[in-house]
Each structure stands twice: as C-alpha cells, then as structure tokens.
C-alpha cells in the first residue's frame, strides 16, 4: 500500500485510514486510465483525419492546380494557394473541344440507357419472379451468363456488329448494347420475389387487372431498389470512358470523359492547369450528387456486393 502512495506522491497525513488511501489510489489509477483513453481517442481521430487527407488531398491539389498559371504549376516544391486564381483556365478547358456537344451526348446516352433499362428490366424481372413458364430456366440462364460477361471482353465483336448495323458514331450505337441490364434484372427479381403472394391475391379479389397489379402495387413496392439501380446505372454510364472510346471514330457521339481525356492530346506540352480545370468540370457534378445522397449511393454500389 505504502509503495503505491509513495509513487503517487501526495501521501495522506498519517492518521488517514488504509481504506481511504486505497480509494485515493484507485481514483488516481482511474484518472490515468481515463487520460489514456482520451489520448487514444485523440490519436484515433488524428489517424482518421490523416486517412481522409489521403483521399481528399488529391482533389484539393486538383482544385489548386486548376487555378494556377502554367509557370506556377512548375514550381517545386509546390505551392497550395496560387497568387492570382486564374478562372480563365475553366473557359480554356471548355473551349478545347465541342464541350457543349460532349455534355449533351453524355446526357442523351446515360439518360437513354437508363430509360431503356427501366423499360426492359421491370417487366423481365417481374416475369422471372412471378410467372411459371416453359423455358424460364433457360432464359434466366441467359441473364445469368450475361451478368458474368464484362463488356470489356466483347468490344471487338460488338464493334464489328455495330459497324455492320451502321450504328458506329451514333447515340443509338452507344445506347443499345446497354438497353437492358442483367444486374438490374437480377436485383429487381429478388425484390419482386420477396413480396408476399397474399398481396397479389388481395388485389385479384379487388378485381384488379394484371397490368394494374404490376403498375399500381408491385412496382411502387420495389421503388427503393429501382432508385438504387438507377443511381448505379447512371453514374456508371456517365463515367464510362472505354465504351464510347471504342465505339466512336469521330466527335458526333463522343461524351464528356472522352473530351476531357482529349485535352491532354491537344496540347504539345502538359498543360496541367487546363487539364485539371477540365477534370474539375467532369468531377464536380458527380461529387455534389454524391455528397447530397451519399447514403443512397453507397448503398447502391455496396449492395452490388452483399446482396
């Protein structure tokens, strides 16, 4: 007991009972433990902030570069805040190509794909989930095989196919291959299957016709899944670089990501400030949407994995 008191230092006056000394030591120990836990919490938060920095710094760097003059980008060690923000860079980036057209193309293609996908996956998923019909196993097999085939794998034959259909360099050519989604059918079928039979039976007793049951009762019930899938699909096709690159040979149907990537090829020297300005134009809308509906989007992408 004494040693403890000594090490702690503040030894109570001789008459103090052993019990009180003990409790004193305990409070001291508790204080130390508390201090350690506070320290750990602070360290944890610092580590978390460092982690955030690893992901945020590149974006901040992008923003900083996009406001610099070209000579300023070549200062080493780099400066974070440019002397005079050069807003002109954004206009310059925009003017390196027909960006209005790229933008329009992106909207038409990502939007067109989304609309067609909704129109094709809802009835298909419903039929697979709710009807028994001869050959449904085989047809669903086609869906599952498609789910496994990455588009990266078959671009060559599809290119030849589209060229035979005279669909290269058209919006339709970029939309049609994705007019339906195996992943969407898979996800939605799951959701339709989870709806209880009783609900459909109740609607039948209410004299509802088949199409009305689907439109008024079943589809509203899977709305969360539909929203999730829509986010997933739109973002994926908005961002897509590979497919439009491979399926276009001129500017008529090219999309925003291609336009941005092209800035690099246009200039002889690397004009990183213009490039980063263009990049920011591409990234900002998605980032804004992401931080507005972060939960939904994370769910959309992560559910891809946990199903």
């Amino acid at each position, binding site marked *: 007991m004494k040693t403890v008191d000594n090490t702690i230092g503040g030894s109570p006056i001789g008459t103090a009972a052993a019990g009180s000394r003990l409790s004193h030591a305990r409070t001291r120990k508790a204080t130390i433990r508390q201090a350690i836990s506070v320290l750990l919490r602070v360290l944890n938060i610092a580590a978390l902030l460092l982690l955030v920095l690893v*992901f945020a710094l590149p974006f901040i760097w992008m923003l900083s570069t996009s406001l610099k003059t070209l000579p300023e980008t070549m200062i*080493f060690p780099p400066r974070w805040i440019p002397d005079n923000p050069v807003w002109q860079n954004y206009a310059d980036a925009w003017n390196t190509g027909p960006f209005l057209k790229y933008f329009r193309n992106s909207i038409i293609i990502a939007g067109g794909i989304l609309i067609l996908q909704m129109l094709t996956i809802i009835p298909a998923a419903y039929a697979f989930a709710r009807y028994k019909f001869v050959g449904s196993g085989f047809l669903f097999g086609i869906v599952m095989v498609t789910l496994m085939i990455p588009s990266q794998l078959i671009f060559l034959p599809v290119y030849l196919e589209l060229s035979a259909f005279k669909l290269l360099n058209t919006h339709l050519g970029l939309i049609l291959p994705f007019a339906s989604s195996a992943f969407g*059918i898979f996800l939605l079928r799951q959701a339709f299957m989870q709806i209880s039979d009783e609900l459909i039976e109740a609607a039948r007793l209410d004299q509802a016709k088949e199409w009305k049951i689907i439109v008024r009762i079943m589809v509203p019930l899977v709305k969360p899944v539909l929203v999730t899938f829509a986010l997933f699909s739109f973002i994926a096709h908005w*961002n897509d670089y590979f497919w439009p690159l491979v399926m276009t040979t001129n500017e008529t149907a090219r999309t925003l990501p291609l336009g941005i990537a092209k800035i690099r090829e246009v200039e002889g020297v690397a004009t990183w400030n213009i490039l980063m300005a263009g990049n920011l134009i591409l990234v900002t809308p998605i980032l804004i949407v992401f931080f507005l509906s*972060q939960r939904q989007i994370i769910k959309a992408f992560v559910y891809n994995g946990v199903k």
Partner: protein
Amino acid sequence: MSVWEKLRPYSMVAPAIIVFSLFFIYPIFYMMYLSLFDWNFVSPDKAYVGIQNFKDLLTDSDFRQVLSNTTIYTLLTVTLTTSLALLLALWLNRKGVFHGFVQGAIFSPHIISLVSISLLWSWLMDPEYGLLNWVIGLAGFGKLAWLSHPSTSLVSLVIVAVWKGLGYNALVFIAGLQSIPPDIYEAASLDRSKPWTTFRKLILPLLSPSIFFLVIINMIGSFQVFETIAIMTQGGPVNSTNTLVYYIYENGFRFFKIGYASAAGVILLFIIGVLTIIYFKLLSKRVHYR
C-alpha cells in the same frame, strides 16, 4: 388460360433477352469464330488459319509479357486492396456522423470517372513537379520516376487501383461485419475469447463470403484493366504496363489484326470464365454461414 396469358411472360422478358443475345451472347461466339481467322477488317475475305493465332500469341514475347504484367498487376492489386480494406473496415466499423463522413470520403473515388482519376494521378505522379515526389521528399526520399520508368510504372498503376478500390472494398466489408449478429461477439466474450481469437475464429470465417466476393470481383476487374493504362501509360514505357485488354484494343484498333486480337480475347474469356466458376463453386460451399 387464354393465349395472351400464356404469351405474357415471354413478351415481358423478350426485350431484355433480345438485347442480351444480340450484344453479349452472340458476340462471344462471334469472337471465338473470328479467332480462327486472319483478317484486317478492311479486306472483304477472311482467311481461315485454324489455331495459328493462338500459337502465335503464345510464342509472342510481347504477349507473354502482357500476360505476366496482367498477372502481377492483378495479384498486387487484389492482395493490397482486400487486406488493407479489411483493416480499414475493422477500424471504421462504427456508427456516427464522423465515421459516416470518413466512410464517404474514402468511398468517393469509386464513383468518379476513371478518366478523372487517371488524369489526376498522372499529375500527382509527375516526376518533375508532382505532389507525390514532394510528399516523399518531406519523408526524406529522393524523387521517383513513377510512371515514366519500367521499374516503377506497373506498381504506380497498382497504387492508383488500390486508392480507387479501397473505399468500396472497405464498405463491402463493413456491410458484412454489420450483418454479423452482435450477440455472437457477446457470446464470444462470455466464453473469454481474446480479441485476436475472436477475429480469427469468428469474424474471419463469418466474413469469408465477403472476402471471396471481393477477391473474385477485384480479380475479374483487374484482369480487364484498361482506362488507367490507356490514359496514363499507353502500355509503356517499353511495354512494362501493357495488359490484356489494352493489348486486344491495340491489336484490333491500331494494327487491325482482328483475328489475332480475338484470339487474345478468347484467352481472356477463358481466364475470367475460370475465375467465375471458382467463385460460384466457393459460393455454393459457403452458403451455410448465412
């Protein structure tokens, strides 16, 4: 049952099935067919060469390097992403606004176009004025060549892939962790299980479906890497970052060796097919955990 009622399901699945058959199923067979021919896309007739394209590919030293590049890239990316993501998930698996924010931040690269990421990292990895060289300079290291030297180029691409994939992977793990009923931890602590034992004997096995899912998905994704290579290195320097899809793309669209490129495509199809089959085999073995 009326005729219409019998036809209804078919009419409902027809649009989707037509799209899939036309743009996914048929192209697979078309590609296999093309792989047996020598064709330059322009000439009207294709010359049948049997399996000559495959023979050429397997003896081509460039293609061998492409295969080895792709394999190294895949192995590095998958192991790093999955294991780091698991650590992050164990660390970040907490509710609350701040943790939500951190999760959002590390996830954000996943929804950004690969074009942006490639351009941004090209700049970050600029050997002269890049931010990365400044950061390692602060830590006392000399400048690295990053993408512009064969010895570091492939690893640089791996870093970009890990940076992009880490958040998504970690969040899948977090979702997996949260699907483990908390009373299992309570039962384990009543059984006086040490944290490390709990992790090894309980968390890891219960998480194995997520681990397998991510390993396979990451592998399939890495084998098809294209965008970062097309934008950041174009396969160089000296073929050090040339990978399968980029190789197919170059042979098909730059050199117009359609048959040759198709044969490479068939090989990639084979690799991805094997991975998919392994995934389903493992999946069917592991279902009893859920």
